[in-house]
């Protein structure tokens, strides 16, 4: 089944204006951006809970809203499933009653069959008669999904579906959510401010900032080519670099970058096997670059991998840390404007190593600190 969602919405609120236009096809579209950038408001417009001042919303071939034509379907008639932040399960109803809530119009027997089917598919049949307060975070998420999916929505909306969970659970449920979304095949729009979540869950990522869309692209493209500095900033990524694959196995990837041969750990959950000579995107967190102390001259190859050397071209004092901009000794154009790598060091390290006087350093990138971005 192919689906198509076209959104253009303008809504003026006191002190905030939402003015966005984007479209998406099958799969999951992620609205990504900082809090207060208008993501949830967009979902509410899609669901008919907030009426835009202008614009047009089309799901597949059905016009849900068209300011020009005076069309504004109420939420009750939009067939849009909504998974709320914090899930908004009805606390006074059992799991079965929650999941069946949207099926009231259907005959009793059919309603029962549908609820059983949904509970079964989401593996929560065993909890059918329990109440939301007795469920774990993961079970609540599944009940919320089940309630929204039971009505066979043309479109599924999810607002920060993982934010109610603590971190370890979050990561496990992220993959579970992905499996469920792919398994049900319902076109979905998901809101998150977490880049990993956006990347894991989205087929297409729409980047929001202050009520506007600053980039909308398939996820791989977004990481390869952030369209602007603000996209890169919002994504919180620094040192996003591009190399050329030499050799990839299920646990290691070797590649060339700026005249160096580097080795990275392949993703433990999903191994990427790019062909030799194909381009490869990766990033390194600035705080994970290790400067090598000159007073301990023994370079230990077990600990010091991916060795390089370079000169500081600029530095910025952030109080607790310093950001150093290094240019490699390697000839050729620097990878990021006038520098190759951004390196963050704690203030104490900066002072002990007397970095203010010594501008040339060797450093290493641990292979576990190089994050390879799949192009798929």
């Amino acid at each position, binding site marked *: 089944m192919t689906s198509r969602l076209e959104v253009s919405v303008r809504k003026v609120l006191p002190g905030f204006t939402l003015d966005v236009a984007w479209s998406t096809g099958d799969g999951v579209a992620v609205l990504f951006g900082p809090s207060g950038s208008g993501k949830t408001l967009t979902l509410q417009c899609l669901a008919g809970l907030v009426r835009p001042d202008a614009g047009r919303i089309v799901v597949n071939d059905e016009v849900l809203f068209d300011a020009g034509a005076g069309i504004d379907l109420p939420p009750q008639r939009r067939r849009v499933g909504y998974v709320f*932040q914090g899930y908004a399960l009805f606390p006074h109803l059992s799991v079965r009653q929650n999941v069946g*809530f949207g099926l009231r119009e259907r005959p009793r027997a059919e309603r029962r069959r549908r609820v059983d089917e949904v509970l079964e598919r989401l593996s929560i049949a065993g909890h059918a008669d329990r109440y939301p307060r007795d469920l774990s975070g993961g079970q609540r998420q599944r009940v919320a999904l089940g309630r929204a999916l039971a009505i066979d929505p043309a479109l599924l909306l999810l607002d920060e579906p993982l934010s109610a969970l603590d971190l370890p659970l979050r990561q496990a449920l992220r993959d579970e959510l992905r499996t469920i979304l792919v398994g049900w095949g319902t076109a979905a729009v998901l809101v998150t401010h977490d880049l990993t979540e956006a990347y894991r869950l989205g087929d297409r990522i729409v980047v929001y900032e202050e009520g506007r869309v600053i980039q909308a692209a398939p996820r791989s493209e977004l990481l390869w080519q952030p369209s602007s500095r603000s996209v890169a900033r919002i994504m919180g990524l620094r040192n996003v670099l591009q190399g050329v694959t030499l050799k990839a196995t299920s646990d290691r990837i070797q590649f060339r970058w700026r005249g160096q041969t580097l080795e990275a750990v392949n993703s433990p959950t999903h191994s990427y096997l790019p062909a030799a000579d194909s381009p490869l995107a990766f990033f390194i967190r600035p705080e994970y670059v290790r400067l090598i102390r000159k007073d301990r001259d023994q370079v230990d190859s077990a600990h010091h991998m991916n060795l390089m050397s370079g000169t500081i071209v600029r530095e910025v004092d952030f109080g607790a840390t310093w950001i150093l901009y290094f240019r490699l000794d390697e000839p050729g154009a620097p990878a990021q404007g006038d520098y190759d790598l951004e390196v963050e060091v704690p203030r104490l390290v900066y002072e002990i190593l007397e970095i203010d006087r010594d501008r040339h350093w060797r450093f290493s990138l641990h292979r576990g600190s190089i994050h390879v971005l799949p192009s798929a």
Partner: protein
Amino acid sequence: MSPDNLSALRLSLQVAVAATALNALVGIPVAYLLARRRFWGRGVVDLLVTLPLVLPPTVVGYYLIVLLGRRGVLGAPLYELSGFTVAFTWYAAVIAATVMALPLLVRTVRAAIESVDRDLERAAYTLGRSELRTALEVTLPLARNGILAGLVLAFARALGEFGATLMLAGNIPGRTATVPLSIYTAVQTGESGEALGLVAALTVLSCLVLVVANRLGARAA
């Protein structure tokens, strides 16, 4: 307890129950609208239902006479049409008690409704429920303890109503003389024994009401 006292007690309970029922009928919808809707005149409605809380009861009673008395704004046409007038009847006591209790109910219920997560209502809308059905199936059931607490408070207030009742309904033994009015009469005529029985009865009832209200309040929190 004397037959007069018993009839006063029965009348008081009757009035309080009727006033509480009217409060539920009028006050809950008003509380819902104030909590959830932005409409023209909302501020005025809010003011009107809160005013009896701060106005002296005799002033409220005076307004009720202006409104419902035989020559009142609504009372006169009613008398013309039916020959019936509300003033100095059992109904007058009910109306006075209802109006005086309304602020307590509306404020309590409104707070309870406002504390219901709006996303629950939004979820119900996306699942096909109309606003009315959502209110009946989601909002009000979840505000249940607050509503019950409000009703209990309204009942207590109605039971103890004095000033507005005296103005609109008078103090007619057996017809409009509720317990508070009978206590006043008994004290005025020097029958302190009679007064004591009624005072004790009202004190016990009020304590009961407070205990119930506190229990409900604790559960609602």
